[in-house]
């Protein structure tokens, strides 16, 4: 059924391309096709020890497949790790398409075709059991993203994405080839790696290649450009779903193939391998710098993009630390980020759909106009800021605990301060877009967009109440790596250092809210129109030319302090490299002078060199 699924999805790609003029039908076809990975997910639920009722798993997918292509063999099999990440992708994907059904009007066929291709590629990546299959599907996924970026037509986005995508591809290719050189096989199961330097270099290259997709600094340069210049439903899936594949790959290669003992063989520091330590430090730096840069953005999409970069950094920290606690935290953070970032990008899309504006300083006051969008975004922002009334907190908490447990003295404060920085940009979104003076008289977002957003909010609530369920999902993955699952019940997670009981938090919060509600409802109140307050009853029409929404340059003092250090640091570096390449390119181009006599001399010189070489031989 796996091959059939690929075939049906490819067929759907062709069908939606043909249905370019009928966006709604194309959306329906795409959504139906997008259910295939979902059914695959439910069909494979058994490997995670979950038994689902049969109506949830109508299709039977085989758990492994070998298909001979001729020049290579496709080896596909489902693993617990693949299942976990498939859970993230397969659930957010149909919802992104649902959102798109009302959002994308222009050249819709191409949009759905590209989306389906990204999912097809990701599906293959998650099932891949050898390097060829992994690389093949990885690149299909990668270039389908390029196709979606092309729709945006932004120069920086296209050039940065394709060059970084190519860098990533080449690093992966080089790494795989080095592993092939060492082991003589592409099959993950047969790769018995030794502790040689070649293996280390190969693994580093593979991890670096994967880090490009995971937007780790300094390889993140493409992400803000791409995230801010493509259609929102796609970006929601890109940031929420596809960026996780980088971390899927890191887990696969670092713990599934290389293994903890091999990583440790290159030296450890306080029981954490240098390899992981470096990744954790890079992750912490990414988390911090991404956050600082996010605070400084005025474009809503850029803000969310840098926020993604920062939040993904946490996953890298968890993978780097590599204890069961940290890996569970990393998986949890990946799960949370998938849903809350998808909601935020979709909410940004809904706001754009109604107002046509991206700049935070040009928006404002939409909270009363689009209450359901606002509430969904509020939930997502709580999750992003790790406020303990969504599942966002549990993930960060696990990571903090893991870092303290392994005595990461310098990484932990950076993580914590990045968490505080998240409050800053979270509030910037809330205030700049939804609060303050109402400036647009718009309607609530269409129902399909609302449904998509609220279904994505759902997991954030579920895993708030049952954080132990994520630990349950992580258990088979950890046991594959020879690790013990962390001690937990559905509501309580316990570590060596402390415990976190969500039930206590929820009940205490409910009690406290009840008390304050009673206190609050004691006296009646009257609602006064928004404009009547600080303008002392003066009609606002008189002041139309003054914006009372103080959202432009919102964090100016902050920017004064951090701006000089952080703004465009990484981009500068890449621009210098590009300039060097262009210098070389110009040199090469000047060889072709366009003069026939020069070319004839080249031939003659070449002949003379060869003869000289032969004489010296």
């Amino acid at each position, binding site marked *: 059924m796996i091959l059939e699924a690929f075939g049906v999805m490819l067929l759907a790609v062709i069908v939606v391309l043909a249905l370019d003029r009928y966006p709604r039908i194309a959306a329906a076809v795409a959504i139906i096709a997008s259910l295939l990975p979902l059914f695959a997910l439910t069909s494979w639920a058994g490997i995670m020890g979950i038994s689902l009722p049969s109506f949830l798993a109508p299709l039977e997918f085989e758990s492994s497949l070998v298909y001979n292509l001729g020049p290579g063999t496709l080896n596909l099999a489902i693993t617990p790790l693949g299942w976990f990440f498939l859970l993230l992708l397969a659930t957010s994907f149909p919802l992104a398409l649902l959102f798109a059904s009302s959002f994308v009007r222009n050249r819709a066929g191409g949009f759905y075709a590209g989306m389906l291709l990204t999912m097809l590629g990701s599906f293959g990546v998650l099932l891949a059991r050898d390097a060829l299959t992994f690389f093949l599907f990885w690149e299909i996924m990668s*270039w389908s993203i390029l196709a979606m970026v092309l729709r945006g*037509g932004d120069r920086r986005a*296209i050039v940065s994405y394709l*060059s970084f995508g190519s860098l990533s591809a080449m690093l992966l*290719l080089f790494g795989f080839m080095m592993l*092939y050189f060492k082991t003589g096989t592409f099959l993950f199961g047969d790769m018995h790696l030794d502790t040689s330097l070649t293996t280390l270099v190969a693994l580093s290259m593979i991890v670096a290649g994967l880090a490009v997709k995971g937007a780790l600094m300094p390889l993140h340069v493409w992400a803000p450009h791409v995230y801010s210049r493509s259609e929102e439903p796609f970006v929601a899936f890109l940031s929420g779903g596809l960026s996780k594949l980088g971390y899927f790959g890191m887990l696969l290669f670092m713990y599934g193939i290389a293994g903890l003992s091999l990583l440790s063989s290159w030296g450890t520091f306080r029981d954490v391998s240098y390899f992981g330590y470096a990744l954790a430090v890079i992750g912490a730096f990414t988390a911090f710098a991404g956050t600082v840069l996010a605070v400084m953005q005025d474009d809503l999409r850029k803000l969310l993009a840098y926020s993604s970069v920062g939040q993904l950094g946490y996953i890298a920290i968890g993978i780097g630390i590599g204890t069961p606690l940290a890996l569970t935290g990393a998986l949890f953070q990946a799960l949370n980020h998938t849903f809350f970032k998808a909601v935020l990008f979709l909410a940004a899309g809904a706001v754009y759909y109604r107002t046509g504006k991206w700049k935070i300083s040009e928006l404002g006051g939409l909270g009363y106009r689009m209450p359901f969008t606002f509430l969904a975004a509020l939930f997502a922002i709580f999750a992003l800021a790790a406020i303990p009334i969504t599942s966002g907190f549990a993930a960060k908490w696990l990571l903090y605990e893991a870092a303290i447990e392994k005595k990461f003295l310098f990484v932990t404060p950076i993580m914590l301060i990045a968490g505080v920085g998240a409050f800053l940009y979270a509030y910037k979104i809330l205030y700049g877009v939804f609060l303050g003076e109402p400036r647009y008289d718009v309607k609530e977002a269409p129902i399909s967009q609302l449904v998509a957003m609220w279904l994505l909010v759902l997991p954030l609530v579920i895993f708030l109440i049952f954080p132990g369920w994520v630990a349950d999902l992580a258990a088979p993955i950890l046991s594959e790596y020879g690790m013990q699952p962390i001690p937990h019940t559905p509501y309580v997670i316990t570590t060596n250092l402390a415990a976190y009981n969500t039930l206590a938090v929820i009940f205490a919060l409910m009690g406290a809210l009840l008390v304050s509600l009673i206190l609050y409802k004691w006296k009646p109140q009257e609602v006064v129109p928004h404009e009547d307050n600080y303008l002392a009853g003066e009609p606002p029409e008189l002041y139309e030319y003054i914006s009372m929404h103080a959202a432009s340059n919102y964090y100016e003092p902050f920017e004064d302090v951090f701006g000089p250090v952080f703004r465009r640091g990484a981009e500068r570096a890449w621009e210098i490299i590009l300039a060097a390449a262009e210098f070389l390119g110009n040199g*090469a181009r000047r060889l072709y002078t*366009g003069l026939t006599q020069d070319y*004839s001399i080249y031939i003659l010189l070449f002949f003379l060199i060869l003869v000289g070489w*032969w004489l010296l031989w």
Partner: protein
Amino acid sequence: MVSVPPVLLIALPLLFAFFAPLVNMWSRKAVKVYTLLVLILNATLSYLLFANVMQNGVVYEQLSGFYPPIGILLAVGPIGAILALLINTLSTIVYLTYFGEAENSVKFSMLYMLVTASSTGIVITGDLFNMFVFFEITAVGSYGLVASMRTKESFEGAFKYIVLGSIGSAFILLGIATIYGYLKTLNFYDIALRIDTMPPTARLMSFIFLIIGIGVEAEIFPLNGWVPDAYQGASNRVASFFSLGPSKAGIYAIARLIFTLLPILSGWQLALLLGVFTLIIGELAALMQEDPKRMLAYSSIGQMGLILIALSLHSETALIAAIFLMVGHALAKSLLFLGVRDYARGTLRNPLIAAPMFIGILSIIGMPPFPGFWGKWYLMKDLASQGAWLIMLVIILTAIVESVYYARFLHRGTGGEKRKLSRSETAAIIILASLLILVGIFPNYLYDPAVRAAASLLGGGP
């Protein structure tokens, strides 16, 4: 299966080409149809030949009544059959675009058939002098094709091509003379058998002469000065035709040279070095190129370098890679040349053009599941198994450079006003793109012939 005498592949189009003026006298409009029919016939024959070779192995045919080593011999091995099929099929598809043109020149059609025939001749001949003759025909026909645009640029390009092409021919002739002087034979197998009797210096000299001569046609740096100007000056159709026909024939000749004719170690090393340089210079020169056709031309140079690297590695895996790269490049580059316009702006606004061109670019930069990917993967696999990290690094860095300039190309294509191609051109690029997809998704249809070709070449056969 009908067994087709390979000579028909050369003889028929040559013959029909000379009848074209007669057809023209009868009806001007019929010439295009007539040419297309000839090309289709040739493509069919080449398919039959291909099937025959795949079934029965190498097909030999001696001409003019003498037996080898004196007589002229055609020897079609798997690689020759693959390339003959490729050249004939694709030239038919590319010729389709001529139907969208108001212009109707019988000379163009004649030259087109001529070059198709002679390129095919290069890949199926078993005789060095024969090869030289076909090279000459190809070159002369190509000069005419480049100039057929009748613009300043095309005359300029044609002129440069003539000068450098003539120098190249002189070198080939020198090489042939050297070999003939020592061995008194021009038959490939005869030479290969008795090559050891030649003094080493003479052997090396003849190798140098031949590689310089063929290198001009195969677009090897530093012998390829004509390439950017000729491709820029030629019409899209001709540029597209060049990247599938003569350049592939040239690279095939180099393969024969280093495998069958003069399999010497230093020759492989030299070819490898040349390949690396061609790759680096071609890709770097393309990086800063503003004119899209020139950019594609430089990109072709880079690709030729890559193919040359694959050929010079002298292993089965690398040869399979070379064949995938050749097929991928022929399909993708002829597609791109057809779709591109003098400036790239707006080329990609039209989805019917954008999708095929996007696929073409993906194949060239080595993205799966297109033929370029299989080629690159196999090449890297072979390099990795030998531990040739430096060459891998070069390939990787140039691949990144490649993607940067193709990214610029894509960006320019998405901006600006929507552009249209003629219906026949659109049809041609869609067919080419479908071929790319088919070869990519079902690589085993090319893989099996490629394995045979590699075995045959490594065994010293055609």
